[in-house]
């Protein structure tokens, strides 16, 4: 039973702890999301931070104690997560582990798998990456071709995965590979592995984004051998398991460890930008048209926030269950694209400066955010795919 007094005390402790312990300003830029961890400096800093948060009891507080969690009610972890958001603490590094692998193992992993992996996920001692997308198969993931051939008590992996976040730092990969090219349907030929990344035959190559950031890698498997124990579930179950992990990503299924893995542009920051940017010799915020647009953006931000809170209250979403959850990526990524675009407009010619230029507003973070906002509408399920999902699962339209 959840005792409100306990929760209040915990919440206050969490607030205090984060206020005291959140790292101060660094002399290097921290990545805004787990996808841009590009330097060793950033990696070690964030790893230490996640470890500290975990040891203090504020990460995975609601995961089972026997695997390394806190064994508390989810409300406690939510309180800790909110405290982190308010203090705008650095992100949690081990996003794939915390939000995908962890919930997956807790839902359907074996006892051995849970004992082996959960603690390392929370403490950030073992970093996870995701091997789903391939150079030729992203939206059509069901056509994935990376091959896994059983050989005695090992599987031999050949092929390539791309957009592997933190691939160069990861210890493990959740890998979707094809074990049966002759299967009756392409989906039934796929299997799911909890694969080691630091094995012979596995090579990662960094990918540099348009924004100048690293973080993504391409992973090459060249006769890489992994233990047959790495197989999760049975051969042929890979697609089902992969779909389940995507539901965690979409927030359609809960169970994530807590904390934030992305620092989204705060709509309030754009008001600050409007005050500091100059338009016709005066602060841009004094311009009528600018104020109109800010009001539009603030209204929309508020609506998005309220929708996400409403989605957590089941009685308020009876008429179209899942519509808010399934629509949120589409609406929020579109919103952030427009928010960042307006930030560019506000800066006028100063928007030509970029991260690293002394004269850039806010270190050029809006320009970088604007460029990244395009990948946000592609990665994690393109906006076109999101519309298909809404059309099929919310509106009941025929399959595309």
């Amino acid at each position, binding site marked *: 039973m959840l005792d409100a007094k306990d929760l209040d005390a915990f919440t206050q402790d969490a607030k205090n702890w984060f206020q005291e312990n959140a790292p101060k300003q660094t002399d290097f830029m921290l990545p805004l999301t787990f996808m841009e961890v590009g330097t060793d400096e950033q990696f070690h800093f964030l790893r230490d931070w996640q470890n500290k948060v975990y040891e203090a009891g504020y990460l995975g507080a609601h995961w089972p104690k026997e695997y390394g969690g806190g064994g508390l009610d989810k409300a406690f972890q939510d309180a800790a997560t909110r405290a982190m958001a308010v203090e705008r603490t650095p992100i949690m590094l081990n996003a794939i582990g915390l939000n995908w692998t962890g919930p997956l193992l807790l839902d359907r992993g074996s006892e051995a798998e849970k004992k082996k992996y959960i603690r390392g996920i929370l403490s950030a001692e073992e970093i996870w990456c995701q091997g789903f997308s391939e150079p*030729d198969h992203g939206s059509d993931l069901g056509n994935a071709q990376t091959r896994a051939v059983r050989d005695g008590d090992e599987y031999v992996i050949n092929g390539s995965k791309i957009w592997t976040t933190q691939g160069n730092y990861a210890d493990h990969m959740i890998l979707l590979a094809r074990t049966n090219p002759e299967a009756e349907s392409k989906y039934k030929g796929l299997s799911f592995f909890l694969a080691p990344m630091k094995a012979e035959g596995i090579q990662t190559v960094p990918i540099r984004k348009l924004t100048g950031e690293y973080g993504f890698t391409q992973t090459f498997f060249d006769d890489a051998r992994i233990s047959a124990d790495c197989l999760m579930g049975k051969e042929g179950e890979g697609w089902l398991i992969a779909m389940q992990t995507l539901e965690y990503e979409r927030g359609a299924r809960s169970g994530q460890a807590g904390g934030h893995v992305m620092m989204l542009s705060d709509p309030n920051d754009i008001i600050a930008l409007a005050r500091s940017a100059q338009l016709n010799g005066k602060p841009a915020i004094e311009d*009528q048209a600018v104020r*109109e647009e800010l009001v539009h953006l603030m209204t929309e931000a508020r609506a998005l926030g309220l929708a996400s809170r409403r989605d957590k209250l089941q009685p308020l979403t009876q008429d179209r269950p899942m519509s808010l959850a399934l629509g949120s990526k589409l609406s929020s990524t579109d919103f952030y694209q427009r928010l960042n675009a307006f930030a560019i407009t506000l800066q006028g010619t100063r928007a030509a400066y970029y991260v690293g230029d002394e004269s850039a507003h806010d270190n050029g973070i809006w320009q970088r955010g604007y460029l990244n906002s395009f990948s946000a509408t592609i990665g994690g399920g393109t906006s076109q795919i999101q519309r298909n999902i809404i059309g099929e699962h919310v509106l009941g339209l025929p399959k595309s």
Partner: protein
Amino acid sequence: MLGAIKREREMQDLELFTQEVRDFLAEHLTPELRRAGELCAGIYAEKPVGIAWQRILDQEKGWAVPAWPEAWGGTGWSLEQHAIFQREMTLANAPVLAPNAIGMVGPAILAYGTEAQKNHYLPRIRSGEDYWAQGYSEPGSGSDLASLQCKAERDGDEYVIHGTKIWTTHAQWSNKIFCLVRTDNSGKPQHGITFLLFDLNLPGIEVRPLISISGDHEFNQVFFENVRVPVSAVLGQENDGWTVAKYLLQHERGSSYAPGLQVRLQRVRDFAASERDGSGARLGEDPDFCRKLAAAEIELMAMQAFEDKIFSAVKSGEPVGALSSAVKIRGTELRQRVTELAVEAVGFYGLPYQPEARRPEANVAPLGSGLAATAMPQYLNDRAASIYAGSNEIQRNIMSKALLGLA
């Protein structure tokens, strides 16, 4: 020196031509036809209106099929004259003629038809005696048209057609159909398609209405159950129908969007400047709305410049290629934006649902006039603009392959 004089003569001739078109419109575009054009919220004018206008164009000036060869009724105009003619018609709110016959099957017959087919069909298209439906898309084959399944099996000197076509605009009014059918399943899909021309009132054909969300009846699904057409219905060669279809796609000079959208935006501006809302204020005096109108106007001006640039390219014989995709994407998205501004401008007038009042022959007047009656239906109908004629997603794929060299 000589070049400059020549250009000036050309300009004067074009000015005279422009005046000729305007004079014709002033005299023959009746208030009823103009009103019918205004009340139309669909892609093009309904048949009774369209054919009435086409007949006037044909009988008064011989201008029904201007782009055809002169031997078949074309005008022999220069590219500029064609552009001026289209622009003046748009600015005058003349009914938009359905392109199926004049713009599609007509040119197809001109390019691939036998003498007998040309002699039979072309005059009837020009006079408006025949009204054509286009049988292309199927429920399972839209963006991927080559995958079409509607079958035509050879039986003696006939084909037996079995299958269905969908989104057949105005099939409810059509007496003819040009249809892509599958005559061979063995090789590549594109190599087993035949282009057929036949009557739409044959036994075994059923036309079922598809009522749009606006209440309008533009689209239909057509069902073919063992429909027999003579072998002479083939246009071009059997199994070579895809060639004809591709020719039509490339031949389409591409619509021009900017002039029509300028007219629509002006209508929005006029409405916003005169109508008062519930609090007595005019939307045309609201700075936020003015800003949106200004932003739309700027983009329309840019669109006009873009289309002018493409016109120049066409005129000097340069290939337009994938830029036509860019035009389609921009044009339809701007069209949708203007409909959104119109809905915002008309306010509560967007609520009444009265499709029957917008029909030209209606006895009931719509609530609110002009923009008030059409803003919402137009907005709803134009949701489809980014889907039909090659969805904007497909157009972006085309551009990324052709212009960006992406996979």
